[in-house]
Every structure is written in structure tokens, then in C-alpha cells.
């Protein structure tokens, strides 16, 4: 499949132009207030290249899931085009199922099956014959460390294990594009590593492209090749995580936590007071690197150090980028 794609020379796996979807206003009934019209996606333009891990980052309600449902053929857009490996998904939504594998947020279709049967059945419904479905099932369960719990029903598992089992189901019957909607929610670090190792292996072996939805900035920074930042249905920036962070480069974030109160009798500290975003005993400063070095030198010596409980020095995160770009939501992005 991917080989065929390569022969034809697709550089862009997904091409989205002017994609819009407006949910109509709902009139209030007795006792329930109505909701106004919502532009869930608003003129979205995206290009995802072969072999990338491409991220959609944004707080809850930014339009990530609506966008993904439009890309997977589950939701018809009001306007705009979606092309995946040369196929028009708006006109032929049923083709999406033959190009991509989708891991949604819900597992209710598989909940009452055993891990093994859930994966095998998904493989068969992805067009594999019984023998290949079973062979791929065994390989994927082994790869993700699910073999010991293969015989247990999904609903009897912990949230993270259930998520991993659904991820396994998305991997059988290999597809050139994986669309993963917050795949690692609830997973412990071991399971997370298993997920990203499996993704990397498929990238290396098949050139698989991954479209990842996340609201976790730490994960976004470590895993993604490129990221589109969504806010209120619009793409407000699209670049590599490093490229995005370069927009707020030249700044270092310094966080200071004082024991009881800030030692304002130290002149250098008193000067910083006005520039810091203060939240109780915690001060957050965005400074040029030289300034940051000077501040650290000041607070780690002399009278200021005696009053200092903790300090951190960090390069800006995608969260800082999101805020610098004018993202509306002050909360909603997760650092974990």
C-alpha cells in the first residue's frame, strides 16, 4: 500500500483546504438554555507529509475532534476539501476506512470483548483473512506487552490498559495513515513508551504517517515532528515544536518559590517584583538568557537564597507559545 503510494510520489499524505463546519444553534427547551451557533472548524488548512508524526494541539473545545471526524469521513464538512493520498474524502467518505486506521476516544464497541478477540475482529473487519488477522493479532499483542491479559474483557481492565488494547486494534491490518485521538490518556509510562516505540517502528518500516490529537504539551514537544495549534476552530500556527518555540526564543522562564515571603530587602529581588507574574509564593518570570543567569546567581547566593524554597529554569514550552500566539483559553492545555 505504502509502496504504491511511494511509487506515485506522494509527499503530502493529507491535504486540507478551507475546511469549515458550523454546528447550528440549538433552541432552548423548557428548563434547558439553548446553545448559540458554534464554528467548530473555521477555514482549516493543513498539509501532513509522509512519515511525519503530525500533531493537533489545542485546549478542549478548540475543534480538534471535529477536525479529526472530518478527516476520517465520520462528519461531512459544510465547506472545504480533504484529500488523503489523492482521494477526495469529502466526496467519498467511505474510502477513508481503506486508507487510515482511527483510534477514537470511545471503546464502547469493544468493551465487552476480550483483548484478543477485539484485536482479531478489528483485523478481520479491516479486510484480513482469518489466518492473517490471527498472526497480526499475536504479533501486536506481543509487541505491546498485552499477551498476559489477552483473555480478559476490555471493560475489566484499567483505563490505560483498555486504551492500549484499543491502540493494538488500530495497528492490525496496517494502514499508511494512523489517526490517533489522545492515544495515551490514562496510560502509565511503560504503556506510553510501548505506544511510541510501536509508532516509530511503523514509521521506520513502512513510512507510516501519524496524525495525533493531543492537549498535552509535554507529549507534543517530545513526540511530534510538526504541530498545528488550534484555537476556536482555526489553525493559529503550524510548525515544528522547535520552530514554534523559536517565536518566543530569546526568553527563558524562571520560576521562583519563596519560603514565606519574598526578600524585598535585597535590591535585585525588589527590582524583579514588578516583572514577575506572582501567584502566592510563586513568581514566574520570562527573561533574556543573560538576565536569567544573573537572577539565578542572585537568588542562589546571600540573603535571597535563605528565603528561597525552590527555583526552576526552563526554556519556553508550547504552552508559552500558545499563550504568546493569543490562544484564548488560559487553561485546558495539560502538562504531564
Amino acid at each position: 500500500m505504502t509502496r504504491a503510494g511511494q511509487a506515485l510520489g506522494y509527499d503530502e499524505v493529507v491535504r486540507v483546504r478551507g475546511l469549515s463546519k458550523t454546528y447550528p444553534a440549538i433552541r432552548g427547551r423548557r428548563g434547558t438554555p439553548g446553545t448559540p451557533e458554534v464554528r467548530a472548524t473555521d477555514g482549516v488548512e493543513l498539509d501532513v507529509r509522509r512519515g511525519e508524526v503530525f500533531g493537533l494541539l489545542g485546549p478542549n473545545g478548540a475543534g480538534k475532534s471535529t477536525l479529526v471526524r472530518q478527516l476520517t469521513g465520520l462528519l461531512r464538512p459544510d465547506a472545504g476539501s480533504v484529500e488523503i493520498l489523492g482521494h477526495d474524502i469529502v466526496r467519498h467518505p467511505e474510502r477513508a476506512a481503506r486508507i487510515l486506521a482511527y483510534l477514537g476516544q470511545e471503546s464502547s464497541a469493544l468493551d465487552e470483548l476480550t483483548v484478543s478477540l477485539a484485536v482479531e475482529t478489528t483485523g478481520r473487519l479491516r479486510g484480513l483473512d482469518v489466518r492473517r488477522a490471527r498472526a497480526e493479532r499475536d504479533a501486536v499483542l506481543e509487541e505491546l506487552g498485552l499477551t498476559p491479559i489477552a483473555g480478559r474483557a476490555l471493560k475489566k481492565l484499567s483505563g490505560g490498559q483498555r486504551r492500549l488494547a484499543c491502540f493494538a486494534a488500530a495497528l492490525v491490518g496496517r494502514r499508511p495513515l494512523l489517526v490517533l485521538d489522545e492515544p495515551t490518556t490514562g496510560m502509565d509510562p511503560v504503556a506510553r513508551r510501548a505506544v511510541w516505540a510501536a509508532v516509530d517502528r511503523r514509521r521506520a518500516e513502512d513510512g507510516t504517517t501519524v496524525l495525533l490529537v493531543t492537549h498535552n504539551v509535554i507529549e507534543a514537544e517530545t513526540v511530534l515532528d510538526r504541530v498545528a495549534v488550534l484555537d476556536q476552530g482555526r489553525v493559529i500556527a503550524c510548525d515544528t515544536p522547535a520552530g514554534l518555540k523559536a517565536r518566543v526564543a530569546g526568553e527563558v522562564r524562571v520560576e521562583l518559590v519563596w519560603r514565606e515571603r519574598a526578600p524585598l530587602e535585597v535590591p535585585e529581588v525588589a527590582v524583579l517584583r514588578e516583572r514577575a507574574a506572582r501567584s502566592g509564593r510563586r513568581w514566574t518570570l520570562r527573561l533574556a538568557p543573560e538576565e536569567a543567569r544573573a537572577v539565578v546567581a542572585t537568588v542562589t547566593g546571600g540573603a535571597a537564597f535563605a528565603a528561597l524554597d525552590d527555583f526552576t529554569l526552563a526554556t519556553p514550552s508550547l504552552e508559552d507559545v500558545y499563550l504568546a500566539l493569543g490562544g484564548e483559553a488560559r487553561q485546558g492545555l495539560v502538562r504531564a
Partner: protein
Amino acid sequence: MSVVPAEVLPGGSRAVPETASGPAELGPRARLWPSLAAVYRAQLSRARVARIPLLFVATFQSIGIAVMMRGVVEGGDEAQSVVAGSSVLVVAYVALNLLSQYFGQLRASGGLDHYATLPVPPAAVVLGAAAAYASFTVPGTLVTAVFGCVLFGLPLTNLWVLLAVVPLAGAALAGLGAACGLLAPRPELATLLGQLGMSAALLLGVLPAGRMPEVIRLARDLLPSTYGVEAYARTFGPHPDWALVLADLGVCAGVGVVSLAVATRAYRRAAVR
């Protein structure tokens, strides 16, 4: 985290000209029968885990009704329709009521997305689930029928007819149940519709038709399970009219085809919004 830079990946090279000549090859489509078999197997295993208690309820309910009717019905034709009606009631309970609940919940929880993003024919999902639910009613139906025959002193000779009645009435009712579940805008409504259908099957199927007012009898004729009940009820006599039995089963089959087609369309509608 990613250890493989995109540039060194196969096909990741930017030197490849972007002049694509036609769309890429699509992955295989899942064919109807293999995917139907896969859905059937998965649904059967689901049902085995989650539905056994409900199957007991269905069976005891039907047996209870047969016992209750023993005090009302004298025997003869009426006894035959009570036994046939309570046997088919097990099918109505599982195929109509439980299946509409299942699809209603699957739709509401977003579980349909899983099937809708797999290249599987809608008919395979609907038929597989319907067939699994229908075949799960076979033991309950047989137990109820045997118990009823013994209770009312009816012959067990033509019990095998149930092997045709269950799948055909099952198809008709399961199609209706699935369509209700997939079309209902909210899962509570799906449950309600399933319950109503099941109540109709209970009242119109078990009570002897001879005592009903004309309007109710018309409603009875509109209910597909009625033909399953009548087909079985006709076989108790010493010389059953097999042509009429076949005709009744034919009606069941016809309604089954139509209602499953409706359910398949409902699935398509529910999957892509």
C-alpha cells in the same frame, strides 16, 4: 521521542517529484460474509458474557406467562396459541428489546465510530449483531416450548419447526429492533421503543386472537412476530396445513428482509453525520 527523523524515512525524501499521477491504492475492503462471520462471533461472545442473566429473565418470563395462562385457557386452539406465543416471546424480548437497546447505546456513546472507520459493509454489522442476538434465543425458545407443551398436553412432534421460526421471526424482529436503536435520537427513546415493541409482542402474540376486538386484531396482523406464532401454532394439530405454515414463514422472511434493509440504511445514516 521519535528516534527516526522524517528525512531518512522511506519515501520521506523531498527529492521525489510531487507530480502524483492518480490517487494511491486503497486497502482491501472487508467482504460481506467473512466480516458478517467476524461480527457474529464477536457479538456472540459479548452476549455470552453480558446477556446470560437477561436470557434467564426472558425464559422465566415466558414460562411464567404460560403458567399464568393455564388458569385462563381451556385447551385446544387457545392453548396452542399460548404455547406458540410464549415461545416466540423469547425471540421478541432478545431480538427487539435488547438489540434496540444495544444499538441505541452504541450510537449514543460514539461506539459506532469504530465500525464506521473500518471498511466493512453496513449490512455485515447489522446482520451479524442481529443473527447473534437471534441465535442466542434458541435455547430459551426451546425450553419454553417444551415446558409449554408438557403443561398444556400438546405434542412435541413438530418442535423442529421452531428451528425455522426462530431465525425468520428473529430476523424480522431484530431488524426492527436495530432500526429503532439506530434511528432513535436518544438512547432512552431506543430503550422505550424496544420495550413497547416487546409489550406489543407479549399482548398480541400470547393472548388468543379469537377474543380480541377487531382493531386489536388488525394491530396483531401488522406485527411480524404474529406470523411466527401462527406458523408454530398450526403444527400442533394432527394434520397440520403445511402450505399455511410455509406462507406464515414466508411473511416472516419478507418482513425480515425489509426490516434488515431499513436497519442497514439507518446504520449508514447514523454512522456518517
